[in-house]
């Protein structure tokens, strides 16, 4: 059978390496899920050399004419931003490719190697291919331990993109100014923030901060919400009638009841709106309403 030509153990090993490195034949572009970038490979080194490093700012600092200086600043900043964009794009592609290779590739490759091992006639080939398949499936097991990481990766990358957009906005606003107001030195600090925004640890930190913020807001909402049903007990009816004689609020009685609530030993009554106190069906309020009705200082009839 023609399958016999898959006989050398290193053929299988090379195949595994190929899958894990994500560089097999023309598969790189497909694995990272992005179209080929026609510019990055050739342009990036040139831009790096031209717009970064000690000598890259000499032209700017030597220029005495303010207009020309602004123009050089803009060119330098835009091209540095371009480099950071390309680097970030490469990072995203790399992250996406490694995720796809491990998550999808290991299943299919493991299955393929096991199938070949089952039909091949040579014992040594069978052993080599089965071991290779086991290696891949085992690797997948290790990767599954990082399930949280895999699942949160898109969120982290999205956060990184958002952080970068924020940093870019600050730079673009600065570039609307003349050089004297937004010199290259200041722009450099903003560019450093843009560069930092595009790294993974910064992305993770931002996601954690955003989560903490959301939790804090949610906690505040929960803490600040008090809800109950409308009470129809004798005490609540009596107190409402006392506070709202003739279809109008008796402000002095309302204030008197508020003062009474604030003076109770139970501090959960302090600051409680009397409107809620007289109408809530919570049991503790019913007990307190009974006390209020009995309290001669309130003169409730």
């Amino acid at each position, binding site marked *: 059978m023609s399958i016999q030509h898959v006989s050398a153990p290193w053929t299988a090993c090379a195949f595994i390496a190929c899958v894990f490195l994500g560089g097999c034949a023309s598969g790189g572009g497909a694995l990272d899920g992005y179209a080929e970038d026609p510019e990055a490979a050739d342009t990036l080194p040139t831009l790096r050399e031209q717009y970064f490093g000690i000598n890259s700012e000499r032209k700017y600092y030597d220029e005495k004419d303010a207009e020309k200086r602004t123009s050089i600043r803009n060119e330098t900043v835009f091209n540095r931003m371009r480099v950071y964009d390309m680097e970030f794009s490469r990072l995203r592609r790399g992250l996406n490719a490694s995720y796809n290779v491990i998550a999808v590739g290991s299943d299919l490759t493991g299955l393929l190697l096991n199938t070949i091992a089952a039909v091949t006639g040579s014992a040594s080939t069978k052993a080599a291919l089965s071991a290779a398949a086991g290696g891949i499936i085992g690797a997948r097991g290790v990767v599954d331990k990082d399930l949280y990481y895999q699942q949160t990766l898109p969120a982290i990358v999205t956060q990184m993109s958002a952080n970068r957009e924020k940093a870019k906005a600050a730079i673009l606003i600065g570039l609307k100014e003349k050089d004297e107001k937004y010199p290259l030195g200041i722009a450099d600090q903003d560019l450093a923030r843009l560069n930092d925004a595009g790294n993974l640890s910064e992305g993770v930190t931002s996601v954690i901060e955003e989560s903490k913020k959301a939790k804090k807001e949610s906690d*505040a909402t929960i803490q600040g919400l008090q809800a109950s049903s409308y009470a129809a007990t004798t005490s609540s009816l009596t107190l409402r009638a006392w506070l709202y004689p003739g279809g109008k609020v008796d402000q002095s009685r309302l204030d008197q009841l508020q003062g009474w609530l604030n003076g109770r030993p139970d501090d959960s009554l302090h600051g409680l709106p009397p409107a809620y106190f007289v109408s809530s069906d919570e049991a503790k309020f019913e007990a307190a309403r009974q006390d209020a009705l009995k309290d001669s200082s309130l003169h409730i009839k």
Partner: protein
Amino acid sequence: MVCGTFKINKVPASDVKMTEDLFRANKPPPNSVKSVKDPDGTFTVTAEFPPCPDNTKHSPS
């Protein structure tokens, strides 16, 4: 000072205005008082005061 949101449901239609008026007469007054009719014909009256500071629940006056 009172803080947070107070919600009373099952308020009969005849008592909605009174409930709202009593909330509005609070010192300090709420930021808003709203009533929403529920499917059973009763109302939910919601009074919103300024948000509570961290780690507090309807803070004392």
